[in-house]
């Protein structure tokens, strides 16, 4: 795996920008509700991530941190 | 050394000597001489002069300059001061010092360019929105303008509040000998609320939006306590021939000058008339007038308006005494002789009433 991301689900508002623009379609909208009442995005660990950080570039809530390089 | 200067120019000179480094203003008669004076004097002294695109822009530039730590002022006349009310409310809410000079002219609306005192309520009640006050200083001579301008900046900084200097078209344009020797450059003070870039300290925020009603209420009470302190410490007035007076004229600014002339004639005729001249219109000399009513029962309010100062006189008297009134709105300037005749009539009527 070239990279992985961590999503702060309490910041997430389910806007789906990260989901739409991820080149690997590695992020999904879950049916999990956070405290604010939004359905949150999640990165399932088995999905492929290149650490390109496009999700973080798109995220309005600054909810995503991105790691890259080597294997996990 | 005394110079012969107009009130407008003297205001500018006094401001610069008192450390004003920023002037923002828009042309409006009868204060253009001040804006023009500052166009030359402020840059000469290393400060910032901008002829702004409107009075609204000017008051907002004052706000920005004040936030950045400078002694800043603007000036205008009634219609322009109306435009500035929003900015003044923000200055008071943000607790920022600023000086706003109003050379009052006939109103309302376009009015005329003749001197008047019809902005008293606007100045003292705070014409902008919200619970706040502005300190209001009322000079009545060119020398007094030169004395009160430095005070205006000092009070503005001391209390972190806008201060209005309320002149009128006559004071602005008349020329009298004036000297500035008493004005000292202000001491360097550390302002811990200004914005300078958050180097080596926590970031600061200057704002007045407080969604939480408890927070906004507390902010309003904090301001109210400040205004109470000002009311307790900053009242200024002049009394003239009051000790044996049986009637007290209450007047400020140019009206007080006219009244002094009238009183001189009245005294020649043996009429015992004195004067109370408020110098701070806010805080108003409430206690003085209230206490004077213990010995004097007739108060004669004279102002160049249809009746604004009279409200504060009546409030201060709390029903005691009798209030006479002579007002001339629209830019009319009664002469001392006119006023002498009218005060005499009222004086004799009052005397007959007492018998």
């Amino acid at each position, binding site marked *: 795996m070239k990279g992985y991301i961590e999503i702060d689900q309490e*910041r997430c*508002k389910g806007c789906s920008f990260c989901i739409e623009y991820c080149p690997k379609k590695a992020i999904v909208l879950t049916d999990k509700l956070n405290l604010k009442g939004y359905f949150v995005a999640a990165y399932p660990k088995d999905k492929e991530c290149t650490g390109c950080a496009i999700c973080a*570039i*798109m995220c309005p809530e600054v909810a995503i941190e991105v790691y890259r390089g080597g294997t996990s | 050394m005394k110079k012969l200067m107009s009130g407008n120019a003297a205001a500018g000179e006094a401001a610069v000597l008192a450390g004003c480094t*920023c002037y923002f203003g828009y042309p409006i008669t009868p204060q253009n001489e001040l804006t023009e004076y500052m166009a030359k004097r402020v840059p000469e002294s290393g400060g910032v002069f901008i002829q702004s695109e409107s009075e609204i822009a000017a008051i907002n530039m004052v706000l920005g300059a004040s936030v*950045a730590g400078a002694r800043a002022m603007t000036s205008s006349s009634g219609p322009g001061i109306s435009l500035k009310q929003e900015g003044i409310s923000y200055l008071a809410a943000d607790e920022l010092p600023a000086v706003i000079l109003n050379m009052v002219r006939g109103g309302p609306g376009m009015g005329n360019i003749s001197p008047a005192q019809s902005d008293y309520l606007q100045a003292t009640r705070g014409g902008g929105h919200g619970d706040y006050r502005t300190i209001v200083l009322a000079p009545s001579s060119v020398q007094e303008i030169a004395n009160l301008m430095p005070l205006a900046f000092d009070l503005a900084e001391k209390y972190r509040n806008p201060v209005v200097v309320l002149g009128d078209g006559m004071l602005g344009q008349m020329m009298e000998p004036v000297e500035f020797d008493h004005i000292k450059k202000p001491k360097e003070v550390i302002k811990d609320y200004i*914005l300078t*870039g958050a180097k080596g300290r926590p970031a600061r925020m200057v704002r007045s939006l407080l969604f939480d009603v408890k927070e906004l209420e507390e902010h309003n009470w904090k301001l109210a306590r400040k205004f109470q302190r000002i009311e307790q410490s900053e009242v200024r007035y002049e009394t003239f021939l009051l000790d044996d007076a049986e009637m007290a004229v209450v007047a400020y600014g140019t009206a007080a000058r006219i009244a002094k002339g009238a009183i001189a004639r009245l005294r020649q005729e043996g009429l015992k008339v004195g004067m109370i001249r408020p110098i701070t219109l806010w805080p108003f000399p409430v206690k003085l007038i209230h206490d004077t009513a213990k010995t004097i029962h007739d108060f004669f309010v004279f102002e160049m308006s249809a009746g604004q100062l009279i409200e504060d006189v009546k409030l201060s008297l709390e029903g005691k005494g009798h209030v006479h009134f002579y007002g001339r709105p629209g830019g009319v300037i009664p002469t001392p002789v006119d006023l002498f005749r009218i005060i005499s009539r009222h004086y004799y009527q009052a005397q007959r009433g007492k018998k």
Partner: protein
Amino acid sequence: MKKVYSRPKSLKPAHFHYCPGCGHAIVNRLLAEVIDEMSLRDTIICVAPAGCGMLLYNYFDIDCLESAHGRGAAVATGVKRVRPDNLVISYQGDGDLAAIGTAESFHAANRGENITVIFVNNGVYGMTGGQMAPTTILNQVTTTTPAGRISGQAGHPVRMCEVLAVLDGTSYLERVAVHKPAAIMATKKALAKAFQHQMKKTGFSMVEILSPCPTNWKMDPLQACKWVEDVMSEQFPIGVVKEVQC
């Protein structure tokens, strides 16, 4: 693995109040990134507007002040003239800059004030619930144009970059957008470039940012991005409108 993206230091931990998919949130984040990368915390003073963007002072660990609606450019003028070596920015929305603040914006630009205006253009009045703005597109339905904006009655959308470009005091005006990754990267570059212009005192700089407003456009966030791509950028061409030598 190393962390290649983390929360900018200039942002306080507070959660944003913005709606899901709001352009302001992205712009706030980009601004924080640029402040970090150019080490601007010590010098920047930000004037916040009235509008959805006004609460930005809760998010940034920098000196900030609020201005009355529309007055940002005049307030920023006062700040910059007193502190010419600080970086002074005015963050404004479309009503703020192009309706009530037109005179202040125009004249600060005309005087060539060395300030940077960050103009977030989402074609509506967001904070007050979606009324028409100067930049509302023709036929766009808003709460005050329920039948769509009709030019004879409500005027045309205003292209502020082009309006200000004719003024000799302006030095750098670029229109960008935050609806897709490449556009967001370009926005970040434009912000940095605008700050360079200010630091070199070339004149008045402005970055106009086309921004989705899902809530008031009555769309979901992805549809709103599509609207920016398909409709807004037709009306408001993306690109450098003016740039003088830096």
